[in-house]
């Protein structure tokens, strides 16, 4: 379809026919991972000069960068809130981040992701400390390979800490997919495309404990029991990511301390 005039909800979300590809071979996933194994993750805090906080993050082949600006003045003024900060979250994909060049600018998918991501952070950021201010979270997907929204949330959390924004907990995000009838953690592109379901979660973690769900979406087909199992699997994965987020933050501060000595 040429799709010149309609913005079409595909192909990002549509499940392709599962008979086209076998995703689990000998109890292992295509990239050799176990069902409950995360992709390799690399996190670096404070990678940008201009932003107040920033983070570069790789999650498998995903490469994303997050920046936080604020608290700062809100323009135009009528968008200010008298008793709390206004949070903005902008998820954006670079045109070259996907197989077929993406036209620059927001599409319907990125508008939706930006909305649910912002809603995940809103109850966690201590907005009431910064009346009339704005806190802007910008995430750029430089390379996409399934799970970009979770990668971006993980990066944004580190950037927020790097910017010194006070929060009630850290947001950590990971998806669970159903492929070839089994649940797998942190699906990559092939599992997302040919799998039966995809469930991105984001959790609030405080004092090393998962407290609540900040984001959950789902598309595909799962039984109620599978969905409950998926949540457990996601929680385990999230704890591992949480530790890597903490490490990245600490590494940044150690570097600063060393520098300052």
């Amino acid at each position, binding site marked *: *379809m040429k799709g010149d005039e309609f913005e079409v909800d595909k192909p990002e979300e549509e*499940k392709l026919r599962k008979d086209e590809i076998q995703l689990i071979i000998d109890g292992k996933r295509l990239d050799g991972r176990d069902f409950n194994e995360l992709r390799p993750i690399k996190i670096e805090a404070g990678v940008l000069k201009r932003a107040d906080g920033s983070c570069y993050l790789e999650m498998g082949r995903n490469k994303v960068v997050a920046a936080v600006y604020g608290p700062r003045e809100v323009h135009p003024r009528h968008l200010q809130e008298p008793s709390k900060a206004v949070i903005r979250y902008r998820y954006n994909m670079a045109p070259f981040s996907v197989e077929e060049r993406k036209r620059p600018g927001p599409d*319907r998918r990125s508008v939706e992701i*930006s909305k649910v991501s912002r809603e995940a952070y809103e109850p966690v950021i201590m907005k009431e400390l910064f009346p009339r201010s704005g806190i802007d979270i910008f995430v750029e997907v430089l390379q996409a390979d399934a799970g970009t929204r979770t990668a971006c949330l993980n990066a944004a959390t580190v950037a927020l800490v790097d910017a010194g924004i006070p929060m009630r907990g850290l947001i950590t995000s990971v998806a669970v997919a159903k492929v070839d009838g089994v649940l797998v953690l942190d699906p990559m592109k092939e599992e997302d495309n040919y799998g039966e379901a995809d469930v991105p979660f984001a959790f609030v973690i405080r004092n090393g404990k998962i407290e609540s769900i*900040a984001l959950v*979406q*789902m598309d595909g*087909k799962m039984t109620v029991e599978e969905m409950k199992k998926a949540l457990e699997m996601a929680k385990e994965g999230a704890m591992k990511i949480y530790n890597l987020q903490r490490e990245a933050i600490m590494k940044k501060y150690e570097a600063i301390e060393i520098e300052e000595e």
Partner: protein
Amino acid sequence: MGEEILMDIKKDYVLSKLRDGERIDGRKLDEIRSIEIETNIISKAEGSALVKLGDTQVLVGIKMQPGEPFPDVPDRGVIITNAELVPLASPTFEAGPPDETSIELARVVDRGIRESEAVDLTKLCVEEGEKVWMIFIDIHALDDDGNLVDASALAAISALLNTTVPAERFELGDDFPLPVRNLPVAITSLVVGDKFLVDPTRDEMSVGQRLITITSDKDDNIVAMQKSGSYLLSEQKFYELIDVSVEKAREVRELLKDI
């Protein structure tokens, strides 16, 4: 200003009733408003349905035309779902290009239809890789008294059930009924403290946009889910919501059997 004060009063009222386990319109916490479904009301459309969910009214029209398939699924029809929150339907809607609310609405409805494989898209291929049927699902809100999502999703599947593929008009053989094989139903709840209200009205939403939509299919599979709103959800609540949503969807699905 007056509007805000009114909202605060409503909010207090909703919360005080809720402390007694009651809702302001007398419904049980998991009770859905009365539903009316009227199909085939727009004869210019290939299918249509007007759903009244309490005082919320949504009209969905289905238009179909031949088009090119996506390269990676060359033998399947294409679904395009669009929602227009026209200013007629609510004092808070404004004319203009779709905002995040209407985009989210369209996408949540779309996912329910798509992921339940409600329409057998493989039967909508005219010529592999060249020409397939495109299904335009247009959601037209008329009166927003709360929970547009469930009303829209119900109107969408009702309209699809009522759709005839206009093959003759495009000289592609005989008309035939759109092959619908699953019946996704979306159930939205409002999370308030440790309780939740199924199918919230607009007045109930004065306590905040703390919603979750869970769509399940005829086999009680979950096919779409969307937490919507700035709030945190406990695991316990999440589990309860899934169970209730699947159960209530079953109730609503009964209504679709008469179409």
